[in-house]
């Protein structure tokens, strides 16, 4: 029945891995002490650049599970030129993303016509209470600081890419 070589080869693989782990270190990362940097494009959390948002509701409508809540009102801003008519400006009252529902598809970031939404690779925002996963616009604004610059593209890419 059992031929010897196959059985011993298997033992060799595990022993080799043990030696490698002892001499070269493990492949795992001791998470809270050491952190891995996610790739620049990683979809960790959505950041909001509030100034760009016109509360057009495109993101809220295109979200597959409707986890974005937007409320806004129109306000009259002073005219651009002296003597002109006052302009109607959309003011953002509420911009919430419920990360308990979000499935990180990125459609909202794609459809935003005014570059108000960005992906940040930040991932450490778990909460003991599920209700705290509803991030309001100030919290989403804070994530803006963690948004990295878009990466360089690979050789041969069409360079006029967006964002």
């Amino acid at each position: 029945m059992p031929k010897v070589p196959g059985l011993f080869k298997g033992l060799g693989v595990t022993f080799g891995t043990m030696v490698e782990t002892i001499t070269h270190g493990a492949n795992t990362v001791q998470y809270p002490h050491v952190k891995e940097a996610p790739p620049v494009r990683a979809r960790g959390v959505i950041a909001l650049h509030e100034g760009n948002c016109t509360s057009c509701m495109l993101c809220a409508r295109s979200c597959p599970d409707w986890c974005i809540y937007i409320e806004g009102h129109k306000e009259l801003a002073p005219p651009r030129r002296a003597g002109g008519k006052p302009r109607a400006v959309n003011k953002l009252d509420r911009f919430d993303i419920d990360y308990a529902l979000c499935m990180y598809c990125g459609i909202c970031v794609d459809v935003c016509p005014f570059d108000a939404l960005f992906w940040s690779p930040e991932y450490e925002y778990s909460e003991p209470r599920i209700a705290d996963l509803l991030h309001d616009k100030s919290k989403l604004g804070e994530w803006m600081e963690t948004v990295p610059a878009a990466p360089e593209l690979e050789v041969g890419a069409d360079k006029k890419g967006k964002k």
Partner: protein
Amino acid sequence: MYALLSSIPYWGQTILRLLGGSVAVLLPAGTIVYLFLFKMMSFMQSRLGPMEAGPYGSMQLFAEVGKWLQKEDLMPERADKFVFKIAPLVVLSSTFLLVVVVPFGPDAWITNFEAGVFYALAVSSVSVLGILMAGWSSANKYSLLGGLRAAGQLIAYELPMILAVVGVVIQAGSMNLQNIVVAQNAGSIFGWDGVGNPYLLTQFIGFIIFMIAVQAELTQTPFDMPIAESELVSGYMTEYSGFRFLIFFIGEFATAGVFAFIASVLFLGGWGVPFSWFGWTGINDVDNWMNVGGPLIMLTKMLGLVFIIMWVRFSYPRFREDQLQRFAWKILIPVSLVNIVATSVLKVAF
């Protein structure tokens, strides 16, 4: 040393023996779990294992024990309550009964029993009872299958184990484990006594068969079908939790340690060093320091053997039940019978 021991009253000796027995069971179990289950397995899988509790996770074991003790003692409603409760204790008690005959030094033994080998092999089957009880009383189909598999497997592997040991007994001319140790260390190979005469060399086939049978007795991979977590969830242990599971767990690894002790006594020369190194001729010449050095030598040998057991466990897939039976009855038993015949012929010839 023996004089010192006999000056202690009998109750004192009993307490010493109880302490010694507990240490001999629990210390190897803890060492095996930490060194092999936590660390070696992790290293073989390119990870580090527990690192948070204590330096390099060395206190993890105590954390685990604390965790198990806190858990609720669950019991299936239709379980046979009494049998269910005592089954783990039966398994663990067989380990304690086993360690009784193992000699750890010239005087460091718990009982010096003339038919030690016979006793050890007989007592080791008690754990089968516990496993059957656990499997049957759990009122769970997976447990039942696991228990029945365990019974079939352990009985099938008792036999090659006994037959493998018979070769050693023939060669040593004694069933007393202490005498087997002495026979190996005082012996010589064709007149050269540099390493004594460990039966590993002369009884190599017996050693291999014994280790395979031990692997099966301990239900370690590739013979772990009674537990078989991918098939039977956890076999006879499926319904156990908390403290009772902990006892099964300790029992598993303590038995591994004790079997490795027995294997090192039978095949590797036990606690002794080759007597010719110090000019001893028999057990009565052995210096007293061997009562301290002996257990350490035993521990080292035990760890070496458990390393092999665990190494195989972490590398191999498991057999199927019928393949396991076929392997025992068609290969191991005939080979060990041939080994006995060859040993006795050679014993008579030389």
